[in-house]
Structure formats: C-alpha cells, structure tokens
C-alpha cells in the first residue's frame, strides 16, 4: 500500500535538480514527506531550502531548467484512486491541477492577469473544471423559465446550445454559433448569469465586503489583501481536496495577514481540505499548522506535531532557528555562516559547517529521516540518522 | 601597508570578459558571426598589404586599367575583374572594407554619444526637459529613415562626409530613446537614491552610477546597427549621393554595376562579377555583425538577469 488510509499525499525520495550555466543545482535531495487527510502541514525553511520547489513539484510545475530526477509523489484523488504525480501525463495532470490540488502564490499581482477583470479570471477556473455542473444548472433554469412563460426563441436557442455543449462540445455547428459576435452572448446568457452568481457567492465566502464591485474590477484596482483573497477564491473555486499555499501572506501587512490566516483556517474547515502551508515565519507556523516539516538546503531535517516541535526541537537547525527569532525568555542569536551554495553543497550533512554539534562523521555521512518517537522524525546523526 | 594585506584575486572585469567569451563559444551562430567580423577587420587593417596603393595617389581612389565601359571578367591581373570604366574590383573591395568600417563606426559612435547626452538628460531630469527632448526625437523618427537621409545628403551635397553626417542625424534618436528608457528604469532603483544620500552630484550619478548599468543594451544595439548603417550608406551611394565615381566604396561599386546586371541576350550572367562580388561582401559584412549582435544580446541578457 503506497499510501496509508489516513494519508492524502506522500512524497518519497524526491530528487530535483536544476541544470544551469553555473552548474547543477541540487535543489531537493531525497525529500520525504507525508500529509494526512484534513491536516495542515506547515513547511518552514529559509532561502535555498527548497520549499517552493517542493510545492511546485507537487503540482508537476517544476520550473525549467529544473528536472525531477527521481522519487515519487503519491496522491489520493477524491474518487479514492491513488496516482503517482511524477508519472502522470499532461492530460491527466490538467484534470488534477485546479480541481484536486490548487496553489496560492506569494505575489497576488503576479498570479492575476492585469488585463482581465477579476470575475473573468475566476470564471476561467470554473469553466475549466465545473462546466458540466454549470450547464446542468443553466438547463434547469431555462426549463423553469419556459414553464413560467418566459421562454422564447432565444431561450430555445440557449437550450439547444447547452445540450449540444453537454453532448458534443466540439461539434462544428456549436463552434460556428459561438463565433458569431452578438449571437454568442445571447445564447450563453443564462450560463454566464449562473457562473456570475457562483462567483459572487465565492467572493462573499472570502469575506470580501462588496463582491459586486470586486467582480468587475481589474486586479490593480484592488489592494494587496483583496487581490490575495481573489487568488484564494480562484484556488478554491473547484473545491480542491489539497490546497498548497506558498508564502501567501509574506508580502502583506501584519493586520491583513492576520485576516487572511483566519480566512484560510475557516475555509479549510468548511471545504474539508488538507493544506500545505509554506512560510519562513515561525509565528505563522505556530498559529496555523497541525504538523511541521523543517527544510534546510533541499533536505527535510525534522518533522513533528507543532507543539512538540516548539517544545522539543531536536535538529540543531531547528533549535538554532527557534533561537534566532525574538522570543521572550529565549536568546536572540543568529546562525553563523551562510546558506550553502547548492551547486557544490557541503559533503555529508548539509548543515554541518554551521552546526555547533558537528562531528567528523557528519562530514561524510548523509543523515536520513528516522523516527525518534510516535510522530517525531529527525534527520541528524545525533539521533541515529 | 595596505598592499600586503589586500589579496587581489583575478581582476573581476577579466572574469566577466572570460565569461562572455565562453558563452559566445558555445553558440555556433555567434562563432560564425565572430569569425566573419574578424575576417573583415583583418582585411580592413591589412588593406595596404593586400592591395598596395599607388604611391602619390589617394589610396581610396581605385586604380584604373583602361577606360572602356565594358567590365572585364576576373583575370590574374584583376582577381575580381574590372567594373565599368575599368576600375579594379579587387582593390575596390579591399579598400571598400575600410570605408565601410569608417562609416559604420563613425555613425554608430556619434549616434551613441548624442543619444547618451540627450537620453540621459531626458531620463534623469524628466519633466519638461524630457517632454521637449522627446518631441524633437519623435519629429526625426516620424520620417522614414532612408528618405530623410537622402534629403539631408542632397542638401549637404555629394560626398562621403555628407552621407556620414546625414546618417548620424537620422540615427541618433533611436539611441536617445533607448538611453532614456534605461535611465527611467535605473533611476528608480534604490542605489541611485543612495548615491544622492551620500552627496553625489548629478553629473557623478549619471556617469558613474546610471550609465554603466545602461550600457549593455546600447552595446547590443550598436553591434546590430553597424550592419544597418553600412547597408543604408551603400544604398545612398548607389543612388549617387555618396563618394565620387572611382572611390573605394561598396555602394559606389554596386552603383557602377547598374547597367550590367543583365548581360547580353545569349549570356545573362556575363558580367556577374560586377554586382555579385560587391553584393556578397556587403551581405556577409552585415550578416556577420548581425550575428555578433544577436550573440551579444543572448550573452549579456541572462547575465543581467543573473544579477
């Protein structure tokens, strides 16, 4: 059984390398992670840790010149079937992206197309994955209108259009009619109405105070916090089972960040989704995660439930990371040294040049994740890694 | 003493040059471009050796081997044959390379200098200075380049200097636009404001801080332009606006071949050498510089992005 019953996603021995002019960047080196159904997994790491690459690779969107060299990503779809994302072809991936797994990026104005209204962009997501549902609703509405005597020639034309779209979306007659300038708006009137209502509902769910203004606005007319809510709306429009969030609040003000974090937690309850939340902010991790994975220079170095991690950090990097944030009662110290160059990473354990507990063995042996207690794993030779 | 304490590793600018050369080596088209350009450069430098001028005469005037209007085909005496009026084609091509470089470099360098001054003022001070300078630029750009150059060349009278001047006047606006755009972009960066915070004068900021960051696109544009300038100059010469007949200039040579492009009824290619040979050299020159310019752009662009 590649996935346990309670697991939603499992990353196994993932290796991702970037082939650049300066050399081969060993961005992720044998990463192992599990995500249980319905939990929020926080991934914390700094620059070069590989956390963003991991998120993109889960969606099979590893940016070139990156290549997945090895490893598997097992994912349980909503119909119960387990697939290996690494081995899927583009056609199957299209069905998963946006529908089963969605991602929210750090820069909302990079995720939104400045040329299209916000409503159109959300509609695009809905049309990609929920067209059938929308068509059926539209057909129901036409039937209701005809019964109430509001039918007419236009209604019958719409009826024909929608049925045709359901049976044979690529038929020539359909394509012809859809190409006619004014006609194409008439024959899809109810469909667009229904999608618009759905979008307004979605925006309300995002706690946007005046969705009617926002739905017709361009991204630049909205503030950063609003834009990020729109991005979340797009991500959740098709009720994905797994939500990836790559530092979605890093560029937002503290007060807006607090609102968005609350929103994400509430939505997670409502949609019953599992969430992987990536950040470098330990405060956010403490607030939002059930379990935490700590990444350093392309390796997963520690995984534990959030309370356990803060109370009892085992890996020297985790300890040092906790000491480097200003906390009452904790020393405020930096970690000496710099993040390693991943073209020529240090031999053995990648953290050893900066580790105060490093031994000679650490320079030669690469530690692996071992279970130290019920739910606490560490990759460090100090604990038999 | 300081010199003992300071460890100077390999001069960083040499490291950069090596990086650029390495990237050029990796791309076959750019190697081809580099080879062609070097070929022409060597010809231009070695002109007196390859086609020794007759003492006492202006080396740019092509020696004549008679006065017959009918061009003669290549022979051991005239390796490329002769043109109408018996000008030695080989001599004309060799020294024509020098002329091509002369026009190309003069026009491009002068355009860059004028463009930098105007573009820097417009992009740095913005406001009304920017508006005025850019409208002047727009007016010149509104004319089709070749037509405007022709009109100016006619006004200045015939001659090589005249078309050089005409081309400079037509070419600088594009550089001014480019420099202005780069200046607008760079002056919004923090380090320019930081230079102001130190107390740098405007002059220092423009030349020491902004310009070195704006130079790469200029270099790329310049190398792509040398080919275009030479081509346009050849067009002007062909139309009779350039140097006098008998001057070693590719455009002039093609002009001399005007009546001989189609040969006799029996043999249409009887006089191919008078237009094919200068044509090929012109074509290769322009293409070589274009390839080099493309290669430079590919090399320099990611280097900028890398930073």
């Amino acid at each position, binding site marked *: 059984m590649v996935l346990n019953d309670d697991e939603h996603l499992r990353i196994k021995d993932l290796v991702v390398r970037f082939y650049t002019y300066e050399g081969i960047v060993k961005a992720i080196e044998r990463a192992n992670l599990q995500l249980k159904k319905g939990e929020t997994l926080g991934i914390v790491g700094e620059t070069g840790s590989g956390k963003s690459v991991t998120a993109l690779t889960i969606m099979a969107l590893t940016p070139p010149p990156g290549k997945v060299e090895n490893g598997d990503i097992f994912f349980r779809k909503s119909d119960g079937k387990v697939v290996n994302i690494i081995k899927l072809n583009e056609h199957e991936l299209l069905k998963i992206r946006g529908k089963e797994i969605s991602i929210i990026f750090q820069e909302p104005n990079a995720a939104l197309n400045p040329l299209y209204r916000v409503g159109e962009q959300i509609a695009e997501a809905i049309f990609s994955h929920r067209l059938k549902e929308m068509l059926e609703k539209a057909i129901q509405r036409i039937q209701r209108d005809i019964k109430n005597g509001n039918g007419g020639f236009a209604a019958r034309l719409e009826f024909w259009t929608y049925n045709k779209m359901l049976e044979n979306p690529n038929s020539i007659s359909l394509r012809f009619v859809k190409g006619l300038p004014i006609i194409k708006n008439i024959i899809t009137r109810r469909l667009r109405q229904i999608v618009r209502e759905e979008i307004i509902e979605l925006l309300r769910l995002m706690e946007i105070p005046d969705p009617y203004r926002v739905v017709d606005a361009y991204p630049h007319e909205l503030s950063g916090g609003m834009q990020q809510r729109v991005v979340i709306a797009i991500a959740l429009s098709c009720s994905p089972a797994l939500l990836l969030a790559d530092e979605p609040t890093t560029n937002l003000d503290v007060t807006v960040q607090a609102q968005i974090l609350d929103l994400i937690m509430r939505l997670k309850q409502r949609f019953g989704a599992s969430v992987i939340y990536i950040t470098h902010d*330990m405060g956010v991790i403490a607030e939002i995660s059930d379990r935490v994975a700590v990444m350093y220079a392309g390796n997963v170095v520690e995984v534990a439930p959030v309370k356990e991690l803060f109370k009892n950090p085992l890996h020297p990097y985790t300890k040092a*990371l906790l000491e480097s944030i200003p*906390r009452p009662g904790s020393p405020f110290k930096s970690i000496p040294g710099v993040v390693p160059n991943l073209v020529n990473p240090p031999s053995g354990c990648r953290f050893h040049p900066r580790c105060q507990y490093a031994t000679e063995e650490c320079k030669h042996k690469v530690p692996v994740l071992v279970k130290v207690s019920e739910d606490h794993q560490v990759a460090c030779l100090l604990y038999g890694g | 003493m300081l010199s003992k304490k300071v460890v100077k590793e390999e001069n960083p600018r040499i490291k950069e040059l090596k990086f650029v050369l390495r990237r050029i080596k990796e791309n076959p088209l750019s190697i081809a471009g580099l080879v062609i350009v070097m070929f022409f450069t060597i010809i231009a430098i070695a002109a007196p050796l390859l086609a020794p001028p007759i003492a006492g005469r202006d080396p740019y005037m092509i020696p004549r081997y008679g006065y017959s209007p009918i061009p003669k085909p290549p022979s051991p005496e005239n390796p490329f044959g002769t043109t109408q009026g018996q000008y030695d084609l080989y001599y004309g091509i060799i020294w024509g390379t020098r002329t091509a470089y002369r026009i190309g470099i003069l026009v491009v360098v002068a355009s860059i200098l004028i463009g930098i001054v105007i573009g820097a003022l417009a992009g740095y001070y913005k406001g009304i200075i920017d508006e005025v300078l850019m409208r002047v630029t727009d007016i010149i750009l509104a004319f089709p380049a070749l037509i405007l150059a022709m009109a100016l060349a006619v006004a200045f009278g015939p001659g090589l200097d005249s078309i050089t001047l005409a081309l400079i006047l037509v070419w600088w606006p594009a550089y001014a636009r480019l420099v202005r755009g780069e200046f607008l972009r760079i002056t919004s960066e923090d380090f320019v404001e930081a*230079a*102001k915070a130190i107390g740098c004068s405007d002059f220092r900021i423009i030349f020491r801080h902004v310009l070195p960051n704006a130079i790469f696109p200029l270099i790329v544009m310049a190398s792509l332009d040398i080919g275009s300038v030479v081509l346009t100059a050849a067009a002007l010469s062909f139309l009779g606006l350039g140097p006098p007949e008998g001057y070693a200039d590719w455009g002039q040579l093609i002009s001399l071949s005007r009546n001989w492009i189609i040969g006799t009824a029996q043999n249409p290619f009887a006089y191919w050498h008078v237009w094919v040979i200068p044509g090929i050299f012109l074509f290769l020159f322009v293409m070589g510089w274009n390839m080099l310019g493309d290669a430079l752009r590919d090399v320099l662009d990611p280097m900028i992005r890398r930073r």
Partner: protein
Amino acid sequence: MGNIIATLGLRKYFPIRGGIFGRKVGEVKAVDGVNLSIRKGETFGLVGESGCGKTTLGKTIIRLLDPDSGKIFFDPDGSLPEDLQNKDNFDNLDIARIKGGKLKKLRRYMQIVYQNPSTSLNPRMLVKDIVSEPLIVQGICKGREAEERTLKMLEQVGLSSEHLYRYPHEFSGGQRQRIAIARALITHPKFVVLDEPTSSVDVSVRASLINLFKDLQQTMGLTYLFISHDLSIIEAISDRVAVMYLGKIIEFADSKELFKNPLHPYTKELFSAIPIPDPEIRRKRITLKGEPPSPANPPKGCRFHPRCPYAKDVCGQDEPKLLELKAGHYVACHLYG
C-alpha cells in the same frame, strides 16, 4: 542628553497626476503634520503598516525628499531642548529648506540603510568603490587613505580584505546588507535612518545584524531611526517607539511601556495581529472591519475612526491631538481626552 533631531509640523505630500496634461488632481498626504524629537544616542523605533508614511518620514528627515512645510531641527551635538514649539532662536538649525553646498555637507552627518540590499548597491561597482565613494564625494580623503579607511570599516561590519574586489551579487543577503551599512557609516554620521534593514534578510541572520547595529551604535555614538513593520524586532532594539497611521503619529512611548500597555485602538489591533511563535498561546485577535483607507483621502476627524470599534461622534469631527497621558506615553485618541 538632549535631542539631536526635532520636527515641527512636518508635511510631505505627493501629487497625483491625471488627465491628458498631467494636471495635479489630488495629493497623497504621506506625512501630514508630524512633531517628534529623537534623543542623541537612542534607537527610535517607528512602526506602522504600508501606506502609513514611515519611510517617507525617515527620508524627509534626512532631506532625501523635500518637505512641503514644517521644520526639521538637526543638532549633531544633541543639545536641542524638548519643547521647541515656542522657541524661535533655533531656526539656524532648521535644515528643512537648505540647498546646494550646505545640503551636501549635511549628508555627511545623516545617512540611510535601505531595506533591500540587492537594489541598494550598484551592481556594476566593486565593493571597495561602493564603500569608499562617500569619502571621495565628501572630500574627506582619497587614494591610499580612503582604501585604508574602507578596509577598517569593512572589518568593523564583519567582512574582510578579500571582499574588497568583488561585486555585490557574489554575496549573500546578509553580507550585502553589511556592505550597505559600511557605506552608510564610513563618514561617521551622527544620525542614521534604518529603513526595514532586516526585512529582506533571512530570519536566521537577522539577529547578527541587530547585534551589529547595537555594537556600532556604542562604538560610533550613533542615533538610529529604526523603521520596521516587524514588531518583535522593534521591541528587541528600540528605546522609544512611535506608531504611525495615515501620515500621523498616533501613539508614542518607551518601548517596554508601549508593548506592555498599548492604549490607542489601532496600536492594540496591530499588536494583536502579530503571530506569536508559540503554539500554546492562542492570539486574542481584534479584527477590524474594512481595509486601510488611502492616504489620498484621509477620513475627516480622527483618521482611524471608520474602523475603530470604540468610535464616538466626536471622533468623526475633531482630530485628536497627541497628548501625554502618563510620563513619556503620548496618545492621540478621544478615548483618553
């Protein structure tokens, strides 16, 4: 110890241009009447969210931007008195409108460190040139002597001679920030504006930069204006802290006092929004309705009143003044008088 900087009614507006001819159609009131005084040798923290005007205030004080009205008193010896409202004989120390050579001389004593070290260093200049440029531009020294001072300064910030002949892009974020610090401090300024200097740097490196700032403050006798939106860093380094909202200072106190006892509703909300790095503690969050308004159209009366859970009628009409509620703790809120 007296004050080294004092501002009186400082205002900085940015015009909003619109229409075909770029006419001025409005103004962004980035800094709208700020009175503050900074003591010699202290670290003065300035917090607020984006759009509150804190960066504009910092840059205006050191004359990187020209104020639209108000006075900025600067006394490098630090003997400005507390209350300048009614004294006219300090006008010779008013730097709000000086220009030309006098302004250039001023730059020696007031410097700034920017947030993003990747964009605040000229990518085409060697480190040694970047750091020694202030010496040359200010005419302090040049040549061999400048090189020696540059090396000494680099060593003070934790770099070494091997870094002299390199370009900024060859360094990590933390190291680049140190280069920027060296550049700012090489002329031995008296007053330094630190504009979010640790925000673009990895979390694990921030502590060493903060310690560096503290050390340098001691050895070089510096006064800092530390601007940040990261409240935990502000708490760690500041002596006194001011909170800005939409161009005005709305609360101001000693650092410990402010964090223990925030009075203004906005300050309370701001502090409650910080995620606490301890999973055992659940944040008691005060969430506000609505979005922060734009500084082009600040609300009438108290600027915070549309979002304030305690707003009364008077809040929509009169702008509250900054009043001293307890010793050293000032608030601008009608709740307190």
